[in-house]
């Protein structure tokens, strides 16, 4: 047996009874009693995972890696290190880089940088429109046919506002089973918007971002998706009204999926009273009632997945006045803990549900063959091992991401990623980054 064998002892698959697991050459080779027997013969590296929960590696549909163009904020290398540390084995890199990921060339560049880094699968998201300008469709087919095999398309950060363009995009990507991930934000209703519109914005004198600006676009787009029978994905749902519309659409069989960010499951607009730009994000933090509706929707399946919307920024983009600050928060390294805190510890979902919303379903939406797979013999060993009983205090300066803009700074959270296995290789061991999967130079 080669040195790419690992015998992981005593972890609980999805929180069930403890079992041993043998990984050989990137695949799950054996489970249970058989694993130990096989390993004894081959000298596998033994890892004690007693007390830990074994889950399929997490898949993020919504990550900003910033490269190319904003390497001061993040690079594919630093962003994917953060992803591995957070328990992810695949991330979708959003298209709002510079240049925008709107051609086969740019998506292949991002994809190859991901391959070279070797921490997680990097799946580029292609821009829906050229330069995110909302005027002409990008070369969606070329991106789909490229080595990056793009299946998720989004102008995230900007709403595809033109209804005709949105309709055409939804129709066109059917040719390769793509999905349009919409950033639902009616632009005219949110001009100069700084935070959620309501009682707090009225007191703070900040221009409000009304919930209806999100809900109006979602309502329109689910009807468009129904009309052309296409796959629509709603990015970072943030309001109770949006949940109602998505629930309505799903009841009618419309092919809509939706994501919620960890920060929208925990934080409310009350934090904006500090004027600390670390809480500035798009869509904005909403009311307590919205947070509760989002949690309920995630629990009942109306919202399908967690998307981190990991948005690292250099410190100068946040150490300034609220109005001048960039929108966005980091999230890859806190996602698991925040979801455990808000959804599992509250009894709203199980660890099996966690696997569904952080791995199986996002992998299915992005059509990732090797991710979100069951923990079974013969499957790729993309796995994460979690100490659910651990508690830790969030320190942005101890994170692998370049971004220090974590809204959870100083907060005590449950759950630590102890190890992450990416195609059978431990990218994280004992809670610390190990080594990436060695590249074979096939770029």
């Amino acid at each position, binding site marked *: 047996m080669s040195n790419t064998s690992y015998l992981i002892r005593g972890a609980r698959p999805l929180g069930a009874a403890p079992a041993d697991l043998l990984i050989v050459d990137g695949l799950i080779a054996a489970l249970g009693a058989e694993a130990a027997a096989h390993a004894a013969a081959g000298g596998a590296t033994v890892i004690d995972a007693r007390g830990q929960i074994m889950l399929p590696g997490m898949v993020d549909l919504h990550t900003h890696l910033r490269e190319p163009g904003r390497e001061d904020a993040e690079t594919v290398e630093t962003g994917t290190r953060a992803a591995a540390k957070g328990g992810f084995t695949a991330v979708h890199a959003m298209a709002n880089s510079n240049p925008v990921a709107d051609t086969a060339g740019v998506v292949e560049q991002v994809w190859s940088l991901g391959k070279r880094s070797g921490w997680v699968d990097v799946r580029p998201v292609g821009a829906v429109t050229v330069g995110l300008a909302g005027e002409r469709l990008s070369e969606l087919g070329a991106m789909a046919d490229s080595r990056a095999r793009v299946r998720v398309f989004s102008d995230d950060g900007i709403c595809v506002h033109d209804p005709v363009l949105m309709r055409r995009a939804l129709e066109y990507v059917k040719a390769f089973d793509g999905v349009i991930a919409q950033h639902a934000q009616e632009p005219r209703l949110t001009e100069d918007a700084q935070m959620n519109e309501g009682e707090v914005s009225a007191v703070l004198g900040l221009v409000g971002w009304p919930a209806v600006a999100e809900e109006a676009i979602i309502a329109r787009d689910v009807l468009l998706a129904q009309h052309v029978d296409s796959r629509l994905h709603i990015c970072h749902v943030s309001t109770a009204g949006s949940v109602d519309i998505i629930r309505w659409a799903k009841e009618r069989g419309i092919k809509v999926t939706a994501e919620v960010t960890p920060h929208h499951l925990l934080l409310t607009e009350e934090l904006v009273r500090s004027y600390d730009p670390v809480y500035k994000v798009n869509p904005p933090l909403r009311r307590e009632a919205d947070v509760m509706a989002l949690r309920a929707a995630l629990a009942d399946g109306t919202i399908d997945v967690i998307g981190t919307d990991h948005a690292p920024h250099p410190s100068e983009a946040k150490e300034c006045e609220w109005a*001048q600050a960039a929108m966005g928060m980091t999230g890859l390294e806190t996602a698991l803990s925040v979801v455990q805190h808000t959804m599992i510890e509250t009894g709203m979902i199980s660890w099996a549900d966690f696997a569904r919303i952080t791995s199986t379903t996002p992998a299915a939406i992005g059509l990732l063959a090797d991710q979100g797979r069951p923990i079974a013999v013969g499957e790729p060993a993309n796995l994460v091992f979690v100490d659910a009983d651990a508690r830790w205090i969030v320190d942005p300066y101890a994170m692998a991401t370049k971004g220090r803009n974590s809204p959870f700074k100083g907060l005590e959270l449950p759950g630590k990623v102890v190890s992450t296995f990416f195609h059978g290789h431990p990218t994280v061991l004992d809670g610390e980054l190990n080594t990436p999967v060695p590249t074979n130079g096939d770029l």
Partner: protein
Amino acid sequence: MKHLLSTLDLSRADAIRILDIAEEMAAVGHREVKKLPALRGRTVVNLFFEDSTRTRISFEAAAKRLSADVINFAAKGSSVSKGESLKDTAQTLEAIGADAVVIRHWASGAPARLAATDWIDAPVINAGDGTHEHPTQALLDAFTLRTHWAKVRGIQSSGTDLTGMRVSIVGDILHSRVARSNLWLLRTLGAEVTMVAPPTLLPVGSGSWPCKISYDLDATLAAGTDAVMMLRVQGERMHAAFFPNAREYSRRWGFDDARLATLDAADSAATIIMHPGPMNRGLEISSGAADSPRSTVLAQVSNGVAVRMAVLYLLLSGDQQRPAGN
């Protein structure tokens, strides 16, 4: 009180203390030598990221009457226009040795941000931030109102509040930092407040504010009010149609000569008309109203210096001594 950022967190006791000290400061303005030695050797920086000659001069006069050194820093044409951040600017002021920073900023929350960070240690005084607050304007308005209210009731104003007074704040509430600061302070001092505006110029969420909301100025005047605070229509902040045109706005929400005549006919002798300035004559207020005996516009300007002296004195000297003591 380390900073003055907002009237929302100003206690009744603190507010009355500021107004009482402002009364003593106002007396200084009537002396032949309008100066106190209280802040001799201290440096006050007026840090203005937004043009405001009136407020800057008022703070400058206040600081100088207390014998402080004053540095005026206008962002326009400075290193700020070359891209310097608020953080760097603040740290420069700290290094220079500023003892207090009076900041006017176009962004809501900028003074609060400055006060919350470790960029600077000096007291921060909010001289107006975006559409958030303008606490010294509210204090000078309260000073003006208290003087009037005491006169109406035939009592000394010192130590009193505004309990029972009815104040109507009229106009562009949405964009007004003055309206917000006034509402919190007037409520703290016991006044009843009515906000009068077109629905488009009331912020979403203002329904929960501790005041009455009205769209009808005439009905508000008919119901009786002790003070009408007219707000400037902030055309420079309006990128959308908030009302059809100036004529319609003026007709429905402007304090025009006809409304002045109605007030006079009703013999509402005690009702005063206020405006924080600068005024759009003919839009939110007519010249007849602005220049009438009911108008307190110039008294407000004058009271502004006294109130700002009180604030600077309290923040820089604490309560160690009475400011105007002999």
